[in-house]
């Protein structure tokens, strides 16, 4: 996936330094934010949240480096939707490396777009594997800063990896 596309998927919904009590709480906030932004009904929002949580039950999406990629399929949309959240405090997430998580990248993909989802996950993982990318995401001061540099940071991380 084009890094620019990925940056725009996450640039759409950004939650910075949110207070979240635990895993369930941050997942609920992420899903609520993406639903609000895309005018998705309350009913679908609650179904989506259940799906995202069910996916976590199968195994944590905390893929290491203090980042997690919760995800689910969503019906009735044609393109990939995403949301980025940074929590004020790291959250216990049963991540693969045991480290708590502060960076959350929610991905919702259309029912029939397995390839697009895999590509997004691939680009995103390349970015997350890059220490500079993670450190930028942890320290960017505000939404504008983050949006301004997201393209460039994703691009550099992906090309460097």
């Amino acid at each position: 996936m084009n890094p620019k596309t990925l940056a725009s998927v996450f640039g759409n919904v950004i939650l910075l330094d949110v207070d979240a009590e635990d895993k369930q709480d941050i997942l609920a906030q992420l899903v609520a934010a993406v639903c609000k932004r895309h005018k998705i009904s309350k009913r679908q929002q609650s179904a989506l949240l259940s799906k995202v949580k069910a996916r976590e039950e199968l195994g944590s999406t905390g893929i290491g480096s203090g980042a997690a990629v919760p995800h689910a399929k969503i019906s009735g949309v044609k393109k990939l939707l995403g949301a980025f959240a940074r929590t004020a405090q790291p959250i216990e997430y049963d991540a693969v490396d045991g480290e708590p998580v502060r960076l959350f990248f929610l991905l919702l993909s259309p029912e029939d777009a397995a390839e697009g989802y895999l590509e997004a996950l691939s680009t995103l993982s390349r970015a997350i594997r890059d220490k500079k990318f993670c450190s930028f995401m942890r320290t960017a001061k505000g939404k504008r800063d983050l949006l301004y540099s997201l393209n460039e940071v994703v691009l550099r991380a992906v090309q460097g990896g």
Partner: protein
Amino acid sequence: MSTQAVRRVVLKGTHGLHARPATTFVQTAQQFTSAISIIARNEEVDGKSIISILTLGLGKGAEIEIKAVGDDADAALDALVSLIETSEAFA
């Protein structure tokens, strides 16, 4: 004595090597002391790192090589190949 072994596998599952199968793969790989890597599209990545595996973006039908280097290389490959061919996470 340390040995090196390589096996080729085709991903037959509908969704390829996405987050859940990658997690299962890594959990199995970590049970062995051998260094494990996945080779695909001329790229070799650490088979014990979910992030690294996900960077490959391997979809249905992708051909991969699994390489193991170490004392339990053969046992590791037996377990990993059998996982890909039989586990529900790879279906």
